């Protein structure tokens, strides 16, 4: 088998004109670090489940990406995180939505898949399950970053100008990917 992995760190209005060489190198280094983590497991004969978790956890801890630390802010100034995982051999799946205090949402999605009778848990119930499973919990402020906070301020200004909510913007025909994806 030609083993390996493929990763993404988000899509959007990303052009050379709005990217500095330093920032571009930082993104490439972060992507390489995620590939390193996942590929090492595969190369050693490990399972694709562990490789996916390892690669995603590197990106969850990297403030450049919109996941884990570096997540965007909600309208109210907090963070709500979502994750899911699926095993192609078993067709087992696990997912979590709207979690605020679980350090690694992708690890919680795996716990839901492997150690619950359910596919998706949300919000406080998901956090309660995470605590029962011994996963690391953090304050919601753990996910704060300065650049995402500045994005929120710009977004709120736009919303005030347009007198609309982010949800309405997402459903409009003139929705700008930059608004969502930073």
């Amino acid at each position, binding site marked *: *088998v030609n083993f390996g992995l493929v990763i993404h760190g988000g899509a959007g209005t990303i052009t050379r004109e709005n990217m500095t060489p330093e920032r571009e190198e930082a993104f*490439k280094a972060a992507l*390489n670090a995620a590939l390193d983590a996942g590929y090492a497991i595969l190369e050693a004969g490990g399972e694709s489940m562990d490789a996916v978790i390892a690669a995603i956890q590197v990106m969850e801890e990297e403030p450049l990406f919109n996941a884990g630390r570096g997540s965007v802010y909600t309208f109210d100034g907090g963070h709500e995180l979502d*994750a899911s995982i699926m*095993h*192609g*051999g078993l067709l087992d799946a696990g997912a979590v939505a709207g979690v605020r205090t679980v350090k690694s949402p992708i690890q919680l999605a795996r716990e839901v898949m492997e150690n619950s009778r359910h596919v998706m848990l949300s919000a406080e119930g998901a956090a309660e399950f995470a605590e029962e499973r011994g996963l690391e919990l953090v304050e919601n402020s753990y996910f704060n970053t300065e650049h995402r906070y500045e994005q929120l301020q710009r977004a709120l200004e736009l919303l005030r100008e347009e007198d609309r909510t982010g949800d309405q913007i997402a459903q409009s025909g003139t929705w700008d990917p930059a608004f969502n994806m930073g």
Partner: protein
Amino acid sequence: TVGAVAVDQRGNIVAGTSTGGMTAKRYNRIGDAPIIGAGTWADNASCGVSATGHGEYFIRYNVSAQVCSRVKYLGESIEEAGAHVIHNVLLPVGGTGGVIIMDAQGNFSMPFNTEGMYRGARTQREGTVIGIYQQE
């Protein structure tokens, strides 16, 4: 949004996705990332997919599962299936974003219809590929 799809030495595909969601979202809005079939899908008989983009569209068009269904039932390659869904299904209706795809043979594809997508792959056969912009 971040994601990964891997195939191990036993040929098992796993796909995963993790996200902070959408800037300034309200009302406990949830996008496609935690929706099995929309943001994430894996089936050893076809492929594994993780998606990133405008979640409301990825949910309605069941994007990740649709890519794998085209591989499974139409016999398309992952390149053909991914390109069709991203460029011919999503883009005409205003759905923007991309997917990463890997099959059980370690073939991979990373189609997207935005200006850029942070992406990378490493396989035993092809080594490492990193990209950000179109035409990379």
